Structures are given as structure tokens and as C-alpha cells.
């Protein structure tokens, strides 16, 4: 403490010690600046980081809302597809197109041999297109079923999807 040096120089010495010495005062300004910069920079970075995170949370919410919206839409569309693809609906529409249930199945082999007994499809009840007698042809096409010629929709069109 001052007890050791105080009596030697007295009041002047104490005042002199309070005065900043020449060279150190020059070095202190950049240091203070650096500290201020660091602190300020840190603060701003933190602020930016925080707001970026918050921005993210807003974006997240927005995207979640959008997801919900799209899920709702997808489910609504799926409902429509299901309603149209249900076997009942398919049968009704096939009948509207003048198709009739296929009856006993008959198969046409690649060698032209007919397996089963193909029959003429019965004409649909509300006969919109007069059903012509479909001529049986041994056309070794790709369709394994004996599809009669002609474009009459009353042919032995199976109601099965033929999977």
C-alpha cells in the first residue's frame, strides 16, 4: 500500500501517479475500441441469430399450415378418386357405356386355340346401340380374351379390371 512509498514523495508523488504516463495512453484507445467493437459485434450477432431463429419459427409455422392445407386437399382428392374407383361406381358407369357382365370366361391361346366356350354377350337392357352379332375371330392378338370384332360396346367386355 501507500504506506511504504507515501512518506518519501508526499502529495506530489501521489498526484503524479494519478496522471497517466505518456506511452500507455496511446496504446489504450485501440484496446477500448476493440472491446467496444467485440461487445457491440457480439450483441448484434446475438440479435441477428435470435431473429433468424425466430424467423425460422415463423417460416415453420407457415410451412406447417401449408402442409395441413395440402394434406386436406390430397385427402379430398383421394376421396373423389375412391368414389369413382369403387366397384359399384365402375359398374354403373360401364353399364352407362352399354357394357354388360362378361358371362363365362373363354381364353384364346397364343396358338389360336380357344379355351372355354365363348358366347355372345347379351344385349344391355336400355339398348342404345343395336348389338350386332359379334363374329368370333381367331385373332392371335395380345388380349387373351376373345374380343369380338366390331366396335359395339356390347361385346363381352368384362367388368373386371383385368388385373
Amino acid at each position, binding site marked *: 500500500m501507500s504506506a511504504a512509498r507515501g512518506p518519501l514523495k508526499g502529495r506530489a508523488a501521489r498526484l503524479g501517479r494519478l496522471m497517466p504516463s505518456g506511452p500507455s495512453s496511446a496504446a489504450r484507445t485501440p484496446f477500448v475500441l476493440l472491446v467496444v467493437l467485440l461487445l457491440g459485434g457480439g450483441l448484434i450477432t446475438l440479435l441477428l441469430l435470435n431473429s433468424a431463429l425466430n424467423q425460422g*419459427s415463423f417460416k415453420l409455422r407457415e410451412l406447417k399450415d401449408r402442409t*395441413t392445407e395440402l394434406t386436406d386437399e390430397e*385427402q379430398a382428392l383421394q376421396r373423389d378418386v375412391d368414389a369413382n374407383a*369403387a366397384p*359399384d361406381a365402375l359398374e354403373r358407369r360401364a353399364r352407362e357405356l352399354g357394357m354388360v357382365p362378361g358371362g*363365362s370366361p373363354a381364353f384364346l391361346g397364343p396358338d389360336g386355340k380357344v379355351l*372355354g*366356350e365363348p*358366347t355372345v354377350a347379351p344385349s344391355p337392357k336400355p339398348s342404345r346401340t343395336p348389338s350386332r352379332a359379334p363374329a368370333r375371330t381367331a385373332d392371335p392378338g395380345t388380349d387373351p380374351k376373345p374380343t369380338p370384332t366390331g366396335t359395339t360396346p356390347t361385346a363381352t367386355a368384362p367388368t373386371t379390371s383385368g388385373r
Partner: protein
Amino acid sequence: MPSQEPPRRRVPGPARPARPRPAGSGARAGAGGRAPRPAPRPAARRPAPRPPARRPRTITLGRPKPRLRLISVGLTLVMLVFVVRLLQVQAVDASAYAAKADKYRYQEYTLSAERGEITDRNGIALATSVDAYDITADPKLFTPEESKVRDAPEQAAALLAPILGKEPAELAKKLRTPKSRYTLLARKQTPQVWNQIKDLKKVYAQKARAADGTGVNLLGGVLSEPSTKRVYPNGDLGAGILGYVNAEGRGAGGVESMLDPELAGRDGKIRFTASGGRQVPTAGSQGTPAVPGSDIELTIDRDIQWAAQQAISDQVRKSKADRGYVIVQDTRTGEVLAMANAPGFDPNDLSAANSAAMGNAALQDAYEPGSTSKVMSMAAVLEEGKATPDTHVTVPNRLHRGDRLFKDDIDHRTWYLTLNGVLAKSSNIGTILATGQLGKDQAESNRVLDGYLRRFGIGSPTGLGFPGETPGILAKPEDWSTSQQYTIPFGQGLSVNALQAASVYSTIANGGVRVEPTLVRGTKGPDGRFAPAAAPEENRVVSEKTAKTLAQMLESVVEDREGTGTRAAIPGYRVAGKTGTANRVDPELGRYKGYTASFAGFAPADQPRVTVYCAIQNPTKGSYFGGQICGPIYKKVMEFALKTLHVAPTGSESARLPVTFEPTP
């Protein structure tokens, strides 16, 4: 009291001559001496005023020492209180306060697991879950005080009724619920419905704002709660198999209930720091994610199921029957391709469903199968080597056995039939005569027949594990009554469910090996991996030769002019089948009344692929013969199944076993 005592004691202190200790006072003060410390100061500052000794009274008031003591003691006490309280808060009740704080700081939500889908064998959804909203309201906001309108409930109800599809009066009544802050307007509405209401709310909010801010949003009290809804896109298709879910979304019937643990998944939880209801992004969150339920793939083929259901529903309606079932089974794998019940129900709208039709009658009804079970008696006779299809059986008009006189379904003169003919013409008497040969005496015959019946799966559960499934009734052979020993060979006096009956024919079709029926192909877990179901049990019931012979005999039923099942014939195919017309036990009366018409068979007879079984309970209009009403259903469903599965005719000639023989005079 201690706060007062020291000052009084030390009052004379300052009056005493100060001790001359200028230096080292700081060091002493650090040591904490009480008495010496205040002393130097008055001594140092006021050396002069010491002589006048008549002013001490005013000085004592200004003396800081007692005051400081008082204050420090007071502060110490306050600090002590704080410390005690701190200890209480931080140490004693710490957990309770922490929990309380967490309650406000953290928000916890249950993440509901998505219920798995049920699909058919091609992956087409038969049951799926979609998002939905429960529309609720706060009736308090519709009171005249809050809404500033007298008939707010009626106005709101008129707006909501067309959207929710409900009666305005009903909604208004709910909105008028007194002293309540919650009422449920409509359950499980689609998001589109809620969107419509939201839009409407927005319009009214704008209107309210336009009215100088004094107006009140008429629909402000309408709210929603997210929920999920189980949807069956195909309506009543396969409803008996699928079952339904209850209000909590748990399976309550059918496969939904049978595989509920797999379908339900596991609910998760999330906990996060929230501020103003929103998650604080930097604080992080914790919890367990929800594990979605597994998807179940059934062995059902949707198209075949539809064809079966269509056919049986039509016929049940036409015959004014109680109910009917159709089972389609893959003969090689035992997979059930279709299991249709009529009448059915729509699981999307259980309020409209008839509770009697809500089960899966094909598995839950036990009934006497009638002549379709003669095939098991024939299997026993053939396998035991007691007869061949050509064995001659002379069938009299009546047969006296036990205490009864047995007859065939039609009155006939003595028939000269082969064993094949007995089956083709479905002769009860012929079957009794044939099974009588199984053992040395009737008791042994009973035991042998019972062994075969049980190996065919009669009297035991099918192995599906379906809720409410009946194992049927088959008494032990030693308990068979006098009449039962003669009626069981032709299918009366024992009970089966429809799948058991179908499985008998699949066993014969599969070369005598019974494959346990299966309904579930596998499950697809949340990781998207498909886990096939365990392979069904297989056991041989009859030899391959016996099975082949039986298939040929069953062909005669359909193909022979005199057969009972000619209406089931499919041109181009070799079809094996058997008719059945059983006396039906009326479940209410407990005695025979009405009939059970049935038809069972498989095709193609020489390379079987599909078994179709059909039964109609208590047809009251038109014919009640199995060959007449179930034969056409069999034909229709079988044709459809053969087309769907791309089964071509084998092209071989049928065996045409003889039905009758010429009696030698």
C-alpha cells in the same frame, strides 16, 4: 429486546476520554472489535469540544453507533427472513415450485399416432384415416348480453345448418345451452367444412368491424377441435371383415378390433418452452415422436369381394331370406379372397346400421350345413377303402334306423345308385348306408367319421382369431344321440360356420391337404417394411388319390343330368360342387323351421384354384333348394373369380363317373 440493550449499556462510552490510537485502527476494525471502532472517530474529529460537558444529550441523539446497530440488527433479521425463505423455496419446496414453474413454462402436447390402413391384397385401401374436425361452440358468446342480438343462436344455426347438414332447430338448441361454455355441434367434419365455416366467420368479423367496432362477430363462438376420422372408401364392401371403430377411434369390431394394437400405433408426446402459446425457438423441445400404426394387408381381393357381395345381396333380397354368406378361398394357399355377408352395413355411418347385421355372420353364425357335408362322409368311406365310386348302393324309399324313419328329399322308388350317384343325387339314405360300413359296429363307425370331421376342421376355430368367431358344434362321438349317429353323415346334428364349410372343399381341392384359412397377408410397419404373416398350418386329411376321386364325384353333381347342381355349371370349365338344403334350427324357436340352402365347390375340377361357398339362411320366397338359389350365385362368383385370377379352362374331359347301375334281376 437485545437491540435496545447494548446502546443503553454503552451510552457512557463516548463520554469517556478517547483512547489515543490513531494508527492501526483499520487493522483492529478488520478483527471485528465492536467497542474500539467508533471511539477513535469522535476523538480524532473533535478533540476540542470535549471540555463542554453539558451538551451530551443532544449529541447522543446524533450518535450513529446505536442507530447503526439497530439498522444492522434489523437488516440481519430481514436477511435472516430472506435466507429462511430462500432455503424454503430453494431447498425444502424446491421440487414443488419447479414443477409449478414448468407447468407454465412448458407446454405438453400428445402427438396422436396415425392409425394404419387396411388394404386388400393389391394395396387398395379398404379402411383409412383422414383429418377431421369436431365443430364446437361456446354458448356463452351467443347469449343476448354477449352477442348484443336477441336471436343470435337462431341466426347462427341458420347459417351453419346447411354446411353441417343438420336441422337449424337442433343447432339452435345446442347454442342455447344455458351456463355452458362448450357444446359439440358436429363430429368428424371434413377440413373443407371447417374451412367454409372459417370463411363465413371472417366475413362476419369484417361486418362487425365495419359497424364502428361496436358490432359483435355472430359466429365468433364457433370453434373447432382437430380430430381424425376413419373412412371406408368402398362403403359397405367387406364391412363384416373390416369391422368398425368406436367414438374414441379404437377398433370395436372385425379386423379393426382383432388387430387394434398393430393398427393403433403408439401416441407420442412433445414438450417445449412456450411463450404466448408459441414455441421459443432457442429453448429446444423434447419428447417422444408418435409411432404410426402398421398397415394391414388382407387376403381379400376387392373386386371378387364386390362380385360376391353383389350376388348374395341380390339373392337374399329376392328370396326374402334372413341372411346369406359367400366365401371365396384360394385352394392352394388357403387365403380368403372374399367373405361377403348379406345384409351388410356401412361402417361410415353406424347410426344407420342395423345392429344385427354389424357382425361378420360368415364366421359368427353356427348352423347345420346339410348335404354339403356329405362330402366328408364320402371322403371317410373312400379313404378307409370301404367303397369306390362304383360301389353299388341300393337306396330304398325309406330307411329305418334307430328310432326314426329316414327319407330323401324327394319321394322315390328304390334307386339303384353307385356311390358316385349317392353324392350326385344327394341321397341321405345312401349316405347313411355308406357310412355304416366305416366300422364293425355303429359306435366304431361314429368314431371313424368323427375323426375325419375333426381333421376337416369341424368343431374347432378356423385359426383366423377373428373376434366372435364360432367354432361350431360337434359333439364327441360317444355322446352322439341315436338319431345324431345317422344324421351327422348327411350334415344335420352338427354345426359349422361358413368358413369351416368352405375350408372342407378347399381341402379336397388341394389334394387332401388342409391349409388353415388366412385373412391377413401381412403387415407393413411404420418403417415401410412388409412383414408377411406366418405361414398357415397344413395337415393332410385324406390321400391325394381320395381327393382326386372326390373331385371327380363332385363333378357329377354339376355335370350329370341327374345331378342336383346343374345350375352351377360354367360352360367350358370342369366344375366340382355340392348342393345342400338343410333343415334350419330357428335360433328363436330352438327347433327346426325353415331351410339353409347352400352350395360349395371348386373349379377347375382337375386343377382347382378357387373354392366358392354360398349359404342362404331361411329363404322364404321362391325356391329353397341349394342347387336352385345358391347354384347361380356360385356360378356368378366363380366366373368372376376365374376371370379376375386369369384361370383358363384346363381343356380336359370330365370323368363322367356312372351315377346308376342296372340291378341284376
